[in-house]
């Protein structure tokens, strides 16, 4: 009879099992282990000449109309050509254009001659009609379509290999805008049925590589035999996505991948790779620093509506210590909003670290004498470096100005924070910005532009979206003018705008960031173009002895 519910059943005395059953289990486990070890011996061969490049960026689409993230732009830069390209020294050189834009006297029309003898990957010729098709398609469905359509009213072909852009207003950085890879032409034949919708899993352009395979985690690029320019130095590229920093670091060190892009690699891992490179175990390459990290200060609400406090804060930031502690100096300190490689750079626009001056300003604002100014600082919780930065500044302030200022640090997930930023909910927020194309206009306007100014407050526009809500009389007109003039006059105006902004401190620049990449010892050092994209076509396997895995103090070295 079965026991009633809740009745305790006395345990039966143990009876030994025959050893045969245990031996059977042992054999099963041994079999599993043997299978596992068999698989380890079966690594697939590495095709000669091809290279594996890893990054964290998952690619959802290779349609230039869908491109908005750096990972997509990186792949597109190998598959397509822009009209112009920015060289490493900052000069602009024609790519699919055969010369610089020819501007009309009023600056409202730009004629662009196109290169002849260029073919798309599907064998169709590149001409003015194809370029017009691509630009119109981008204006219609491009995620970043506003970058182009805000400046260009119409596009038309004026010859078999010449196009004309009708501008809404004179726009001096036109060549720089046309260097954006999202404006790369696509074959009208291949995109015939996708004029009004994206084509995610294919790309038919004119670049040095053609797309042989695509999914979100893996893309295979093979050299395009009929490319008009110099042939790639390698036999092809396999791009792979690994989802976390440890995996990326491990993959390069174990030799599983040949090249690693810094995108998604945590700062301490970047430091480890940097040390490996310094010790000769890896090769390292950096692009021009085109990304800025900065604090946005909410200037239209207490407490930071008080300019004294903002100026005090600007003098409370010890950039040298912070960048050294947080990034081991890999991110140089920044005291302006424009990256130094661009025109209008003013490296000393923002005040330097000066605790004595800061203390005097805090005192003037009524703090320090037994009254500590408590300031909430928000960082993006999903970006480990931001947290480090916030905590380091908090500690530095406690050490140097503890009787005047207390930073109350808290984290918030990026997407939520961006949403809150535009609503004026974040008093002091750290984030970063990289322009869609390298021009000062793409750094100042997104931060300072304003559609509706009320006194010194921006009620609507970029400045509000950026969380500062700061503006000044005539500032928007100056920004507009800076995009219409060129040369030294433009540089002077850009510097003046920066100085004016620095005085009001709606933003607090902290550091500069550059794209970086590392390659194994048997691979050439990574090189970047002036737009900060890794030159995949320049990577090549170096001649040398066959691959061996050698132990090293920093961990196993690259096998190739």
């Amino acid at each position, binding site marked *: 009879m079965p026991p009633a519910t809740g009745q305790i059943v*006395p345990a039966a005395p143990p009876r030994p099992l025959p050893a045969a059953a245990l031996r059977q289990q042992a054999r099963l486990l041994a079999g599993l282990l043997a299978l596992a070890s068999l698989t380890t011996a079966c690594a697939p*061969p590495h095709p000669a000449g091809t290279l594996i490049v890893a990054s964290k960026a998952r690619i959802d689409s290779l349609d230039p109309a869908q491109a908005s993230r750096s990972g997509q732009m990186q792949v597109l830069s190998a598959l397509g050509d822009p009209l112009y390209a920015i060289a490493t020294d900052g000069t602009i050189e024609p790519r699919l254009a055969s010369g610089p834009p020819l501007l009309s006297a009023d600056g409202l029309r730009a004629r662009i001659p196109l290169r002849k003898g260029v073919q798309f990957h599907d064998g169709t010729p590149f001409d003015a009609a194809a370029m017009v098709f691509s630009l119109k398609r981008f204006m219609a469905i491009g995620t970043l379509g506003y970058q182009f359509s805000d400046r260009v009213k119409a596009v038309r072909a004026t010859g078999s290999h010449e196009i004309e852009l009708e501008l809404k207003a004179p726009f001096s950085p036109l060549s720089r805008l046309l260097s954006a890879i999202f404006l790369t032409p696509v074959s009208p034949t291949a995109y015939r049925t996708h004029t009004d919708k994206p084509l995610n899993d294919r790309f038919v352009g004119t670049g040095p590589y053609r797309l042989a395979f695509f999914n979100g985690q893996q893309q295979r690029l093979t050299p395009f035999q009929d490319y008009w320019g110099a042939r790639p130095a390698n036999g092809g590229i396999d791009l792979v996505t690994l989802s976390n920093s440890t995996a990326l*670091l491990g993959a390069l060190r174990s030799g599983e991948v040949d090249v690693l892009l810094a995108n998604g690699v945590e700062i301490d891992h970047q430091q480890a790779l940097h040390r490996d490179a310094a010790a000769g175990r890896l090769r390292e390459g950096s692009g021009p620093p085109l990304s800025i990290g900065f604090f946005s200060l909410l200037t239209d609400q207490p407490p930071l509506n008080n300019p004294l406090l903002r100026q005090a804060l600007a003098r409370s930031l010890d950039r040298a210590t912070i960048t050294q502690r947080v990034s081991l100096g890999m991110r140089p300190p920044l005291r302006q909003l424009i990256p130094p490689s661009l025109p209008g750079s003013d490296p000393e626009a923002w005040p330097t670290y000066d605790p004595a001056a800061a203390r005097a300003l805090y005192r003037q604002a009524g703090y320090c004498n037994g009254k500590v100014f408590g300031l909430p600082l928000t960082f993006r919780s999903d970006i480990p470096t931001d947290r480090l930065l916030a905590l380091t500044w908090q500690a530095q302030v406690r050490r140097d100005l503890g009787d005047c200022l207390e930073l109350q640090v808290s984290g918030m997930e990026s997407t*939520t924070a961006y949403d809150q930023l535009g609503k004026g909910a974040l008093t002091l927020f750290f984030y970063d910005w990289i322009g869609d194309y390298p021009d000062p206009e793409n750094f100042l306007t997104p931060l300072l532009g304003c559609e509706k100014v009320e006194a010194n407050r921006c009620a609507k526009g970029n400045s509000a*979206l950026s969380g500062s809500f700061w503006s000044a009389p005539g500032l928007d007109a100056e920004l507009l003018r800076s995009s219409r003039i060129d040369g030294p006059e433009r540089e002077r105006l850009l510097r003046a705008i920066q100085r004016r902004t620095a005085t009001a401190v709606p933003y607090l620049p902290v550091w500069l960031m550059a794209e970086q990449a590392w390659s194994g010892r048997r691979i050439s050092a990574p090189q970047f173009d002036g737009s900060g994209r890794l030159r995949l076509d320049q990577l090549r396997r170096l001649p040398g002895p066959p691959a061996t895995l050698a132990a090293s103090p920093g*961990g196993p070295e690259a096998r190739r």
Partner: protein
Amino acid sequence: MSRRSDLLRYLGARLALAPLMLWLISSLVFLLLRVAPGDPIDALLGPKAPAAARAALRQQLGLDQPLLVQYGHFLGDLLHGNLGVSQASKEPVTTIIQGSLPASLELGLVALLIAAVLGLAVGFSGIARPEGKVDLAGRLFGIGTYALPPFWAAMVVQLVFAVWLGWLPVGGRLPATVLPPEGSGFYLLDSLRAGNDQQFLGALRHLVLPASTLGLLLSGIFTNALRLNLRRALSSDYVEAARSRGLSETRVVLRHALPNALLPVLTITGITVASLIGGALLIEVTYSWPGIAFRLQEAIAQRDYPLVQGIVVVVAALVVLVTVAVDLLVALLDPRVRF
């Protein structure tokens, strides 16, 4: 009423309730996504796109419409089997799920196999000498593997076997130099069917670490469940009766105690399978495994409403089906179960 008709009635009731449950889940997800802070436009365009561009994209995605209108469209599409289009990639949600669900299922099933074999073997091994050294070790194994934080265990395994020893790949489903096989999305099966050794071995090598880690972490549940149930079964009256009839201990254990001890394990297996359908997020993230959980995490970060909703609905439907199937299987195997 006969047992068979009871069973059919039970099955009918469970299946009839499924649409209601799915509607509740999908409505809840729809609402929670919109209530949660964060804007898909920020995720797509970044925080500094001009207001006009933001408004245009909002209109293009239908996010400018009143919530009720959006909900009406969502339900209407759902009833027609249309899960919508991803806001981020503009790909149909069904296509994205078809691409990532098999990855999670392949990982989950192999991990489950490892967990069951390992867990049951360890759980069974202590039976020879209860409270002996082997039994104690088994108990520790059961508790230890269950208590291990998955992200930590996965990272340690990855560091040791992939980075330091270099025996196995650090992540992904296939070597970068091997293209995925065509077919169902289950790479092992697809490559076997295609007879492509390189793909098969590549997929197997990439599966070893994530599946072993997940299997190891799940095995403790099986160890403890079998250990406890087998001990209880071995002390029951029917086992004593079998022993008193002079049957050998092996026969008593294997023929009488074990089948009964495995019934609760079957239920646990069902629950584990159901939980694995939604993917093992930490394992997938650590090993860059492009499964459904990884995709869901990305979609949440991007506030990709249609994709999050689609994944949740599909996973919920599968979980309902699996739990019903397990209930039925247990009922068929155990005549004591009543509805």
